[in-house]
């Protein structure tokens, strides 16, 4: 994997701004700006440590396939590249059970605006050595640095994984289940994903009055709202949405009402940008507040 070549490409400051091309599954690079491509390929998988190292340009599908062979997975959205998924930072619909995407990144080598290879984090699951730069990179959409290679945490595949549905109240269903992996609600139907031992899944489902179903509903893709989970009740008069109960992500057919931004928080973002990319050459024009 050619991290140094990638660094040289990013660091060619004489050529001005630079953008990164993944597989364009998430909107792609910034139009009209020179692009670079992150190294691709799985470097190693340590099944017993439950970690994997790969280039940021690796396709999520390739990683999924390799991990499936050893009975493990990572909850990355299934399209595009690993770097793209991390840079966008959106968690999938299993976030309730698996935790947010940001928690899978243990270590990254990224290329700074100056073209340096910078290491963030460390290779072990538990690590508090220094400030947590990895958290800042996930979801930063290439505005602080370009991911080169990463070490990610995997999880074991469950023995059984089954979707169920019910027309019962989604909040009551959520409260009745022990650690469901996902609970979705479209205003009428509630879906729940249960994983684990077959008998536990069956007993939990029976106890909550759930019936087996083929899978989750289709998700409206116009907008992705973020609401406090306690406020999901408010949606009951809406239509055209699928809400993640217990999480607060709402896949919606209309845009979320604009949210106000605290000027002090914005100023903090600007200071971070100035520190990491003083000439604003990385993914110019990408606005983290305009998604």
């Amino acid at each position: 994997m050619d991290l140094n070549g990638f660094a040289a490409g990013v660091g060619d400051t004489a050529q001005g701004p630079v953008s990164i091309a993944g597989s364009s599954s998430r909107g792609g690079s910034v139009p009209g700006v020179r692009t670079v491509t992150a190294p691709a390929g799985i470097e190693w998988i340590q099944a017993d440590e439950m970690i994997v190292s790969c280039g940021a340009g690796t396709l999520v599908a390739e990683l999924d396939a390799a991990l499936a062979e050893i009975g493990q997975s990572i909850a990355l959205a299934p399209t595009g590249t690993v770097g793209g998924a991390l840079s966008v930072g959106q968690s999938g619909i299993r976030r309730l059970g698996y935790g947010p995407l940001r928690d899978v990144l243990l270590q990254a080598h990224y290329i700074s605006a100056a073209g340096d290879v910078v290491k963030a984090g460390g290779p072990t699951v538990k690590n508090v050595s220094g400030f947590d730069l990895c958290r800042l990179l996930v979801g930063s959409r290439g505005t602080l640095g370009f991911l080169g290679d990463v070490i990610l945490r995997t999880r074991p595949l469950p023995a059984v994984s089954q979707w169920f549905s019910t027309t019962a109240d989604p909040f009551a269903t959520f409260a009745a289940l022990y650690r469901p992996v996902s609970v979705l609600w479209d205003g009428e139907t509630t879906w729940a994903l249960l994983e684990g031992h077959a008998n536990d899944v069956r007993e939990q489902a029976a106890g909550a009055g759930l019936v087996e179903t083929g899978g989750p509903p289709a998700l409206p893709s116009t907008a992705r709202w973020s609401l406090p989970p306690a406020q999901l009740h408010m949606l009951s008069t809406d239509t055209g949405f699928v809400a993640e109960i217990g999480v607060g992500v709402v896949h919606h057919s209309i845009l979320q009402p604009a949210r106000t931004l605290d000027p002090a928080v914005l100023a903090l973002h600007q200071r971070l940008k100035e520190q990491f990319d003083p000439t604003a050459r990385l993914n110019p024009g990408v606005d983290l507040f305009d998604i």
Partner: protein
Amino acid sequence: MSCLIDDLGVAVSPDRVRAGHAELSLYRRDASNFDGSASVVCFPMTTAEVQAVVRVCVAHATPYVARGSGTGLAGGATPLDGAVVVSLAKMDRIISIDAQARQAWVEPGVLNLDLSKAVAHLGLHFAPDPSSQQSCTIGGNVANNSGGPHCLADGVTAAHIVALEVVLPEGDIVIIGGEDPDPDGLDLRGAFVGSEGMFGIATKICVRLTQNAPAVRTMLLDFDRVEDGAETVSAIIAAGMVPAALEMMDALCTRAVEEYIHAGLPTDAAAILLVEVAGLSHGLEDQVARIISIGKAHGARTVRVAQDEAERALLWKGRKTAFGAIARIKPNYYLHDTVVPRRKLPEVLNQVYEIAKRHDLLVMNVFHAGDGNLHPLLVFDKREPGVMERVHAAGEEIVRVSVAAGGVLSGEHGIGLEKRDFMPLMFSPVDLAAQAAMRAAFDPTGLANPTKVLPSPAACGDVHHVPEGAWI
């Protein structure tokens, strides 16, 4: 210019600003061996008071150090150079609990265990469970991104903090993160967790609460060889199980604990493993059976499965009172904290024994084996001449062998002063400059707990040294 102490008195209230010699001496260090000196200690009770204190410190260009309970082990809360200590101990209210959304807002001075107790009747708890949970604060947990035995399955503090109200070092009050899952912009919440008091002072914390498990099974396995115990740990994880906790104790530690609590621990074993699985009944029974067979295949002599809650509590008491037990052997201990890949546990443990032997020190190991988080405990009597130098030298070697084995400097105690100068073992100057850039963005004033975490060159020429005699 007006006097710092008077101004702080206006910021809070004169009776909550203390500068008496006896009182200051209580705040000159945390639970580490690093001594510093505070010029004044103040006790704000509201966010507005914290803000006022920070503004006074900025006006006087005086560094300040946030402090929870002072149980930190890396010198994070140790005030240097006459810094102002900002104690959050009086901000200890649980503000709100939302049982349905499983979130709670708390003030930073709430003690970790008090929160879990307060939500127990709802079938919930706060998952991070450091051994110090009776006395450490949630604010301290956030600043150090603390862990505990049950963080193996449920994750460390960072995974349980959804939002923070922070007084930034320039005095602004901001909310970072949010009750909603994907606040716009960068993950500032994630960046703040683990910032060891250097990015601002957390004044309100929104935590995620975790469902209590419907059932728990706790097992004790014992081995003739440390290697066998360590290999059992790897094999359990490799088999696709993530137990709730997976803790190991070596022979010396087991003997000390057994003499102390009489739990019937096998004192002739080279290592014992405490394994706890939690969840729904069928999955539990299945895991118990598989763990027993993996243990047996790796040389476990006996497997004791706790038959009831009392026996479970007794087994955990053994793990949790290890420090008390050790105090009976020698008066002082130095607790280390490094992480190594699980597969390297046997090798690194052997190196730890060798290092201790060479420095003529006793070492005991009681640690979070499931995530490779070693806690070698050097026990000694500091009245012995020259012993501190040996403790110091052995500690440094332990850190070095851990990093050389592909591990990291700290799994949960943080860097603080203790490991600041070891940071270059893991990070290049460029890596450190990136961390310094984070710090500079959060704290342009450089006054929030300066001189911690980052070794001097990366801290923009801000050269301070650990005071002489800090290792006492």
